[in-house]
């Protein structure tokens, strides 16, 4: 094509030894890019300081009167333990059997699904004492429950249609729960071991119900009241086989009928009526279950993370959009033609840098916030000391740092796709922050749905309280309750971050730089 022949030249040979552009070198290059922009280091430092400071302010704003002596389960959980109990002593091994024929509301209101009527073996009549119970419920069939935090489902039999036979057999420190439809064929539900159960225990029939909960929510205010709840249950064929020092069944209100909670203190005591045909009618109030209305002091310690997120979004976005803005991305892809590798290196660097700064920040936030909360009445025994090195505090500290880091990665991915800072920052803020704010305003089901399907689900990682499925509890975002478990909540954010990265990789391969 040339009209003259090119003079013979020796092509240039470089004196440099060919270096292989490995991934570690790429990481080093991206790290150099990061730390050589002073503003980004500053943003990182401000993010850490703001997270700690806002967490302190948040914790200082929470207080509790904390003057109620809590009932503690054998494992230290704060529980409700009050019920009406028709019982006898049992010394040594033995079996108690009963037929439950009815469980009805006695206060004119609908029956709570977790109202309980059944048999219980209890170490003593003291609230919080170890127990094992087999019980019928209106909404959840037959269950075996023991020591407040354990629950096993039995059959799905419904008292409204047929009576249910229940049986507890005690042998040493083992208690076995059975159920039967006819009193002849028994099926075992669960074999429970109660540690160092004394020789003499209390066995018998009981009735209990959670209180009715009334919830009113509107933007900026929530009123949640719990109260009432009286149920009546009918039992017959109540029989004890074994050695008993008490020849007759006696009745008592364990826990005074109304446990540490709101409700009328002068409520009618429970009652037991025995008909000439041997039908025991027990009326009572109170519940045997973990108390989930206390504040979550772990969750209260990380309120600064919410603000720290904004800085992470900015960092993650700018780390890539600043290159698009100035055309520097072309220099980057000229040096490393593999765009997926560049994306991977950027992801590793931004994730590592943000996590390394966020972890000390969340650890410090938690430690300082805990001492603020102590001063404000969140003290043992209701609020036991939490060790930073143990779950749930450790999970919340590490998880919050991971949350901040994942948000930065999500922002990076969105930044690659949208290529503009403003668009990417707005998108991530809408995804992560907005659901949190909307959750306070929307009806509870909508709020909980939002906190499941958006990256805001990740805030669940900050929860320290355990929410048991066998306790009806209004999981209110404003009380720090998230509808997902901590790890699955964080996984939602991780899934969003991964999806953003995949979309970014696809977009990088498909579009011109």
């Amino acid at each position, binding site marked *: *094509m*040339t*009209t*003259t022949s*090119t*003079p013979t*030249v*020796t*092509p*240039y*040979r*470089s*004196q*440099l030894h*060919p*270096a*292989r*552009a*490995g991934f570690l*070198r*790429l990481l*080093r*290059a*991206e790290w*150099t*890019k990061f730390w*050589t*922009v*002073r*503003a980004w280091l500053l943003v990182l430092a401000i993010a850490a300081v703001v997270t700690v400071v806002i967490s302190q302010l948040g914790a200082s704003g929470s207080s509790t009167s904390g003057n109620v002596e809590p009932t503690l389960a054998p494992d230290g959980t704060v529980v409700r333990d009050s019920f009406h109990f028709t019982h006898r002593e049992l010394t040594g091994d033995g079996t108690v059997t009963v037929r439950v024929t009815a469980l009805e509301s006695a206060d004119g209101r609908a029956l709570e699904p977790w109202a309980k009527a059944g048999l219980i073996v209890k170490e003593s009549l003291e609230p919080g004492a170890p127990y094992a119970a087999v019980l019928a419920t209106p909404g959840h069939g037959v269950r075996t429950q023991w020591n407040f935090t354990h629950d096993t489902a039995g059959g799905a039999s419904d008292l409204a249609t047929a009576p249910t036979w229940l049986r507890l057999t005690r042998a040493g420190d083992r208690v076995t729960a059975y159920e039967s439809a006819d009193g002849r064929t028994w099926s075992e539900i669960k074999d429970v071991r109660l540690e160092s159960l004394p020789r003499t225990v209390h066995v018998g029939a009981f009735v209990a119900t959670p209180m009715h909960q009334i919830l009113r929510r509107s933007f900026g205010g929530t009123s949640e009241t719990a109260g009432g709840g009286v149920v009546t249950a009918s039992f017959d064929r109540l029989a004890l086989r074994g050695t008993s020092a008490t020849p007759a069944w006696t009745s008592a209100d364990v826990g005074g009928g109304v446990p540490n909670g709101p409700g009328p203190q002068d409520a009618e005591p429970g009652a037991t009526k025995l008909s000439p045909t041997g039908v025991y009618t027990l009326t009572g109030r109170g519940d045997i279950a973990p108390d989930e209305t206390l504040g979550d002091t772990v969750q209260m310690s990380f309120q600064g993370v919410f603000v720290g997120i904004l800085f992470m979004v900015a960092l993650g976005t700018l780390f890539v959009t*600043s*290159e698009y803005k*100035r*055309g*520097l991305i*072309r*220099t980057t*892809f*000229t*040096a*490393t*033609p*593999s765009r997926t590798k560049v994306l991977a290196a950027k992801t590793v660097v931004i994730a590592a840098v943000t996590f390394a700064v966020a972890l000390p920040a969340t650890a410090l936030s938690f430690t300082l916030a805990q001492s603020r909360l102590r001063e404000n009445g969140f003290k043992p025994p209701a609020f036991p000391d939490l060790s930073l090195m143990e779950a749930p505090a450790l999970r919340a500290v590490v998880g919050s740092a991971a949350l901040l880091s994942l948000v930065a990665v999500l922002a990076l991915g969105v930044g690659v796709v949208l290529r503009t800072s403003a668009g990417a920052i707005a998108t991530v803020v809408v995804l992560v922050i907005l659901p949190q704010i909307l959750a306070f305003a929307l009806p509870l089901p909508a709020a909980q749905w939002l906190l499941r399907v958006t990256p805001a689900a990740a805030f669940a990682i900050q929860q320290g309280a355990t929410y048991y499925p066998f306790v009806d509890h209004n999981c209110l975002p404003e009380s720090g309750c998230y509808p997902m478990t901590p790890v699955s909540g964080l996984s939602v954010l991780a899934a969003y971050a991964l999806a953003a990265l995949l979309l970014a990789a696809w977009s990088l391969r498909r579009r*011109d*730089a």
Partner: protein
Amino acid sequence: MSDATIEVRNLRKRFGRTLAVDGLSFTVEPGTVTGFVGPNGAGKSTTLRTILGLDAPDEGEALVGGRPYRALRTPLLEVGALLDAAALHPSRRGRDHLRWLAHSHGLPAHRVDDVLEQVGMEQAARRRAGGYSLGMRQRLGIAAALLGDPPVLILDEPVNGLDPEGIQWIRTFLRRLAAEGRAILVSSHLMSELEDTADHLVVIGRGRLIADRAVSDLLAAASGDRVALRTEARTEAMQLLAREGATVAVTGPDTLTVTGLTARRTVELLTEGHVPFAEVGAHRATLEEAYMELTRDAVEFAAAAADDEVTR
């Protein structure tokens, strides 16, 4: 074929309804400075981006050392590129900009100092790039291109916006790099910028190849059979020569350019007709003239198309 070359084969690239590059083919040889010239919007930058693997061609291919850019394992050691001198993070020091590039290829730290010295940026590189003049940015961009000591250099409008001193510096610098045996592709929309720099020219317009020739050939062709004539009797000379079938153009108060006659025949005719003249010689075209001639059609076409776009 040496490995220190750029080959563009039948390249075609479309952006929406605009055909930016339309079946372009050319080669850049080692030891030469190849000027890549065309009016603004002719497709120069698109071609360069495609060579560097930044844009994917719709058709054809661009090879560096016989391979597509994206297949290069250590691209900085094979091709140095300056696409946009403004592509710097304003709060990053010039030196740090070169450091991350060096890290990406595991290049020794002294390479950064070496190239900064080569472009005379040792002092300025300690400052943040946000405060750089255009000349400093161009120098830093060239330093970045030289970092891997590559046998091929691709520079997009490196002279754009430089002061005369800077332009002179770049010309000398590029000549020296080419003398070392490197293949250098320099784009420009102004032919005059490449005067005394380029050995070879690739001229494009509207994404198509217009010329791919050595500079010396091009100048000879543009000069053609024209004769430059200096005379005080301009009118008589014009009448006389036109009668003999020549085309005569006025180029100054006492200068004419004659086309269609040799210098010898012109002298004969003027002497016979007793028309006084001071000087007769073969006309030497400037590169700019050669370029204008080559791109005239392309430019007019482009202008018409631009008007069309405006009215649309």
